[in-house]
């Protein structure tokens, strides 16, 4: 299907150059003009001078953050333009904080062009995931649950971050080994390695990865075609990369709260 122009002008406020490039790419087919602001001050300036159909606002930016910029846009400039927060993590209370500041919703990084299209078409942000605990985060496809980690007894930020680091540092070589064993057609060892990967996913609970590892293990046992297993390892790796982004953001939040 041909992409339609959905917006005349969109303002993106984000301080990260990578995100700026990503947003431009994601938006260029569906909007005529994209303006980029590298902080909240610049976003307010641009919104004062131009008319936009949509404003995508990163929450954490230097000089002026997304909350403050939104408050100015709403209360001083009296703008009614839809403002959608871009956030790296879903934390409890964050949605309310965004709404209190005057935003219309939020989307969680990393997101796809499809997500932006959905916002454009439905006029609403993707429904925000509601998690029952602050130790559960992620998105609707990738839920990370740290409840078991916290139930071990040591809830200090030092301990939690140590465990998360052990998890990511150990998972990286594990994934490499999964690929290597598959390349070597060593299915017996591959089955064991997939089984091994499940152990840490039972502590840092990421069900979608746990189930994928289980499925790889089963495929090895039932001698499924190598190509099928390869696809699953790739999925597993891509989920891990996304999980790592969430975990890193969680760690940053932990350390901020501590200081």
């Amino acid at each position, binding site marked *: 299907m041909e992409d339609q122009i959905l917006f005349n002008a969109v303002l993106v406020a984000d301080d990260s150059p990578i995100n700026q490039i990503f947003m431009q790419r994601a938006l260029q087919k569906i909007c005529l003009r994209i303006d980029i602001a590298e902080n909240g001050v610049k976003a307010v300036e641009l919104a004062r001078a131009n008319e936009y159909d949509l404003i995508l606002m990163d929450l954490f930016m230097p000089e002026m953050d997304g909350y403050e910029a939104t408050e100015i846009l709403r209360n001083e400039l009296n703008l009614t333009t839809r403002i959608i927060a871009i956030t790296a993590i879903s934390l409890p209370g964050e949605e309310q904080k965004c709404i209190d500041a005057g935003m219309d919703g939020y989307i969680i990084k990393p997101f796809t062009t499809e997500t932006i299209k959905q916002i454009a078409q439905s006029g609403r942000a993707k429904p925000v995931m509601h998690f029952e605990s602050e130790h559960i985060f992620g998105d609707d496809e990738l839920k990370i649950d740290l409840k*078991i*980690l916290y*139930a*071990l*007894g*040591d809830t200090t930020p030092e*301990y939690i971050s140590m*465990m998360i680091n*052990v*998890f990511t540092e*150990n998972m990286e070589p594990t994934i490499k080994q999964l690929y290597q064993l598959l390349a070597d057609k060593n299915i017996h060892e591959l089955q*064991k390695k997939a*089984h*091994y990967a*499940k*152990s*840490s*996913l*039972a*502590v*840092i*609970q990421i069900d979608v990865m*746990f189930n994928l590892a*289980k499925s790889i*293990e*089963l495929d090895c046992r039932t001698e499924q075609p190598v190509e099928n297993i390869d696809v699953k390892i790739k999925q597993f790796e891509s989920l891990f990369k996304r999980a790592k982004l969430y975990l890193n953001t969680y760690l940053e939040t932990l350390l901020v709260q501590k200081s």
Partner: protein
Amino acid sequence: MKILIAEDEPVMLKAIQTRLVNDGYEVVITTDGREALQVLETFQPDLIITDILMPYTSGLELIGVVKSNPFKKIPIIVLSAFGQETTVLEAFDLGADDFLTKPFNPSELSMRVKRLLNDVIEN
């Protein structure tokens, strides 16, 4: 009370260690069955927690060795996973006392450890 853990996966190993240290036990950790057997030559735990699939010496071999030694009737909890039911039965045949399926709730681990250790004292 002293507990020996044999588990090759570092996150799971640290998780169990933390919980048991927090519960007040003296904990010695090993990362495979062979290392566990070496430790057992000089260290006498009150309880052993072991994974099944480990390099060098598996959990089953470890259970076999420990339970065949009349001087070391140490209670053993086996860590298993879904799909390992037959292996768990094998572990029971060899003399394992209890099992926990991953993922498990840390409180359940504490409770099972406590129960087995109380049994030991009563007998």
